[in-house]
């Protein structure tokens, strides 16, 4: 319970720090916040076990922290440091960290589901019961890649769970202008997959529903979908002041803020006192400030790095310890024999 809270607070605090850094000119490129959606990312990721894989979308930073990512990694990414997980070659959450079971998405939407299917397939080939979890906004769920990903996951009955984050907005377009569905769980029904809609701002409900889908997938029950009803409280990115969003709607959803709601539960159930809650915020703020200071001290990559790593160098791709338990005699890797 306390970890759920801490990870949500960490997500919001770090994003607020990133916003400050953005205004100070330290952030390279855009900044995409998940304000209001922290419970969906954190609650769903909590349903996974060690060794499972997760592919985030753009507003799922909280899920990455649950999986063990250090906060300063996000700071390095957003400030394009040479020490970042993408070595300065890509931004935001686009890194793949096999040790943490993280598959990085790319900007064309819906594609990571297709790739995660292959990860899940490999798990099953190896006889493990690991599960893969990925996210899509309802906007992303309209791409061809997304539909094909659903079709493949269903056809191969893969251990994949899709969290469909219905946050009402696809960049500047309200989703009901771009689709003729009211219940986004219908996306799953079309592929014969079970779906359950939950209050995406209730971290416990998200956790519980995702856990149900994860358990089913783990026990061979195939893919499942969780539709998280939530709201994107800020514009698409920092450059977007979201003037197209009705103020009363924002007010309505502000009252359902996932962190404040959960803090009330923690208080009511006696998990934390008000002072305890404030202490968490203070701790996390200090942690984030220190991490930001460290990241900003690190250098950009040297220009020559732009040319590296396009193709494998000899010695790249050694047997993969986290996956490959049976390297075949004779190493096939490192180029043609």
């Amino acid at each position, binding site marked *: 319970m306390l970890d759920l809270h801490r990870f949500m607070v960490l997500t919001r605090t770090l994003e607020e720090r990133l916003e400050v850094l953005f205004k100070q000119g330290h952030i390279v490129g855009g900044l995409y916040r998940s304000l209001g959606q922290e419970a969906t990312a954190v609650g769903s990721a909590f349903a996974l076990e060690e060794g499972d894989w997760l592919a985030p979308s753009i507003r799922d930073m909280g899920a990455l922290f649950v999986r063990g990512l250090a906060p300063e990694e996000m700071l390095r990414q957003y400030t394009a440091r040479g020490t970042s997980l993408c070595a300065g070659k890509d931004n935001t959450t686009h890194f*793949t960290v096999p040790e943490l079971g993280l598959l990085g998405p790319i900007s064309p939407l819906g594609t990571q589901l297709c790739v995660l299917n292959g990860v899940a397939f490999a798990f099953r080939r190896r006889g493990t019961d690991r599960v893969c979890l990925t996210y899509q906004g309802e906007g992303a769920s309209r791409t061809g890649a997304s539909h094909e990903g659903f079709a493949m996951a269903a056809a191969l009955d893969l251990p994949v769970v899709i969290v469909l984050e219905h946050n009402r907005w696809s960049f500047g377009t309200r989703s009901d202008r771009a689709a003729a569905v009211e219940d986004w769980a219908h996306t799953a029904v079309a592929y014969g997959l079970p779906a359950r809609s939950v209050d995406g701002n209730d971290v416990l409900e998200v956790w519980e529903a995702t856990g149900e889908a994860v358990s089913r997938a783990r026990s061979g029950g195939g893919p499942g979908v969780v539709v998280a009803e939530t709201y994107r409280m800020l514009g698409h990115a920092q450059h977007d002041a979201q003037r197209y969003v009705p103020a009363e709607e924002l007010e309505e959803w502000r009252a359902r803020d996932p962190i404040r709601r959960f803090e009330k539960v923690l208080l009511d159930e006696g998990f934390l006192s008000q002072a305890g809650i404030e202490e968490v915020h203070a701790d996390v703020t200090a942690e984030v400030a220190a991490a930001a200071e460290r990241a900003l001290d690190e250098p950009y990559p040297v220009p020559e790095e732009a040319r590296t790593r396009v193709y494998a160098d000899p010695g790249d791709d050694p047997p993969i310890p986290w996956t490959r338990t049976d390297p*075949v005699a004779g190493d096939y890797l490192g180029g043609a024999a």
Partner: protein
Amino acid sequence: MSGSDPAGPSPPRPVPSPADDAARAAGAQTPLVEVTYLEAIREAMRAEMRRDDRVFLLGEDIGVYGGAFKITEGFLEEFGPDRVIDTPISEAAIVGAAIGAAHMGLRPVAEMQFIDFIAPAFDMIVNFAAKSRYRTGIGAGLVIRGPCGGGARSGPFHSQNVESYFANVPGLKMVAPATARDAAGLLIAAIRDPDPVLYFEHKFLYRRVKEALPPGDEIVVPLGRARTHRPGDALTIVTWGAMVWKCAAAADRIAAEDGAECEVIDLRSLRPLDADAIVNGVRRTGRLLVVHEAPGFGGLAGEICAQVNERAFEWLDAPVRRVTALDTPVPFAPTLEDWFLPQEEDIVAAARWLLAY
């Protein structure tokens, strides 16, 4: 060699010839078997799957049906449904699953039923597979293979050559075998390669090209190395795929009728491009003709011309010429398709023009 070539510039070296290949095959002391181009692909894939259980296949109708061209006939029975996977008609999902499996250490070979259908998977290939190692350090060693090319009266969507669509994408490799030996050897090299390889097999050659080969698992043709299909000193013809055979026929005719020997270089690999082999050829003959089956505008001949211009301009005794398909979609009716495709006549005419320059 371009700056993106992982091997870097390599010194001039002899290009393997068919005679070398034959000698090597003879030295292998294995009974040779006459196989078609199609059988060479099948047997190479089978041999590699027997040797390495990380190798698996996925695609449309490849399992129960055995593949639209029956390349994977019998594979489901031998390797089982975990390694021969019938998929939905979802090319993006096929390539996506191959990428994910490759990340996890498997060796996927994805089939596009016709290479034209690679278009729906374009995003997965150019944005996910090709950029994965650069962005994240995690490679995507996979093969996407499929029948390309015209001459089979198959119309605009079952006849294309797609190499130029992908030529401008760093991170990809591309091969296009012309012989049964290269069909086997390049496929095995592609499967073992740690980077994504597009393998273009020419459907016109499937049953028309035959060669006596040792069992497929003994052949590995390194990626990025061209092959001299026919030696000559008067003119260098650079080509690949089915055009190799038309160029060879044209060169034979010129030898018989004009007494001039044209060299035919079969690139085999399109990325990395064996620019050294091309440049060395031009430095020997002073004349270059590039022949390819895709339309000329934006085709690979342009890149080849540019590299020769940069590295061998002083050796040229004539302008570089191209013979390519018309700048149109691939038409259906036999009269139209024959007019569209480069023919022996066109190659002979261009070669004679160059020889007379």
